[in-house]
């Protein structure tokens, strides 16, 4: 397989109200790569991520996943292979119990009930939330919701994991646990985050977005230690990198 996992060429996107959120974005991401997308508020990160499983279709340009374009026939398959964890978990959890929610995806895929149940339990175990299986999702804490949202996506055994601000709302322990959890995934990962320390720990490569354009794309340590670049785009140099490169 020489096709890159994700291949995005000159993607532009304008919201119906005329906001130009993406203005010509191109990049390729290989199998098993972990890439962070960083940028100030409103840079277009969430908009970009929503193109990766066909929620939004580019106004111009091309999005390919595993060499496949989004066509009517392939969209279901692509959506299974790209699991997206949203910025707001309430958008993602909609069933009456945590367990039903996690089993929802596998059951829709036509997996037999016993297998779906097994998968749901395994995914909940993986994120450490098995004890919540009979709880209604809207009564969980923000961190628990996030973990369950990740489990719903894992239950579909995706090839690519796309996450929008995974560490927002988490306490330091929850965040640490999340980082450790994500580090164990062998999936291709794309993480949009303001949590630059998390980015340093999880993603060897980073793409910096500003005003709907890619302003830098390269190795995390080099880009994030580039103070002028970071400041120019509403970011800062993370502390862990400061310690590694004292002035």
């Amino acid at each position, binding site marked *: 397989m020489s096709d890159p996992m994700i291949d995005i060429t000159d993607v532009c996107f304008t919201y119906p109200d005329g906001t130009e959120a993406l203005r010509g974005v191109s990049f390729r991401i290989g199998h098993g790569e972990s890439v962070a997308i960083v940028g100030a508020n409103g840079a277009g990160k969430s908009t970009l991520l929503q193109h990766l*499983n066909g*929620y939004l279709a580019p106004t111009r340009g091309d999005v390919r996943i595993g060499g496949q374009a989004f066509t009517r026939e392939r969209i*279901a398959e692509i*959506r*299974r292979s790209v699991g*997206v964890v*949203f910025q*707001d978990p*309430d*958008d*993602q959890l*909609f*069933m*009456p*119990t945590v*367990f*039903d929610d996690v*089993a*929802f*995806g596998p*059951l*829709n*895929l036509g997996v037999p*009930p016993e297998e*779906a*149940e097994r998968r*749901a339990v395994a995914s909940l175990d993986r994120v450490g939330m098995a004890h919540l299986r*009979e*709880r*209604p999702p*809207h*009564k969980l804490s923000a961190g628990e919701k996030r973990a369950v949202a990740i489990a*719903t996506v894992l239950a*579909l055994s995706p090839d690519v994991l796309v996450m929008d601000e995974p560490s927002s709302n988490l306490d330091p322990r929850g965040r640490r646990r999340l980082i450790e959890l994500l580090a164990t995934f062998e999936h291709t990962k794309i993480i949009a985050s303001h949590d630059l320390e998390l980015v340093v720990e999880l993603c060897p490569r980073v793409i910096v977005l500003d005003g709907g354009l890619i302003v830098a794309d390269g190795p995390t340590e080099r880009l994030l230690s580039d103070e002028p670049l970071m400041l120019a785009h509403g970011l800062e140099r993370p502390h862990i990198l400061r310690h590694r490169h004292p002035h």
Partner: protein
Amino acid sequence: MDDLGRMDSPIHRIDARAKIIATAAFVLAVMSFPRYEVSALMPLFAYPFALIAVGNLPAGYLLKKVAVAAPFALFVGIFNPLLDRQPMGMIGPVAISGGWFSFASIMVRFTLTVSAALALVACTGIHRLCAGLKMLGLPSPFVVQLLFLYRYFFVIGDEGLRMLRAAEMRSTGARTLAFQTYGTLIGHLLVRSMDRAQRIYRSMVSRGFDGEVRLLRREAPGWRDVAFACGWIAFFAFARSWDLAEFVGRWLSRGPS
């Protein structure tokens, strides 16, 4: 309500289908009584009462919910005493018109059916209820509607409360919000709800939603469940055909002498 559904009691353990069938039979029985009937309906209170007592449900809480819906029944029944003035019975020297009887009958029926329905949800849990309805052959769209109505009722309610709180915090001093503010808030809530509905729908589609909700509950009904449904149906049929209240009354008045 969700927390009640997750409790454990002999009633909670009964298969959802048995409870649905018994409750449906209950509603049918209540509705089939003649319109002026009041006293013969009384024995039927045994059913909601049994669900609440055996299911360990908080009776006060459920009663409050029944009271919330009561104005609706009041509105339906309130004109009967005006329209139907035929005297039907006497309390002391006062003649009671048929309208009052049918009004009382409507209120009793309302209390019976609503309390039974609430008790059913409370002692079953909405997810098992939906799974049960589906297994009984209710078409999928209805089950999906019910499931999401219930689920997002709270989410949207919460959102509304949050907005209200935010507005109140910023309207310093004023004891109540201006009327226009409420208008704006409600409009905004509607837009937000629609946006959220859209996002949720996308997230469902991305997990393979095709209009069918598949719930993982497949316990086979045991003899206990069958006995539960049959027992209650027999009781309803019995209460419907004989006026138990009158029977008990006669028996009591004869007893001591």
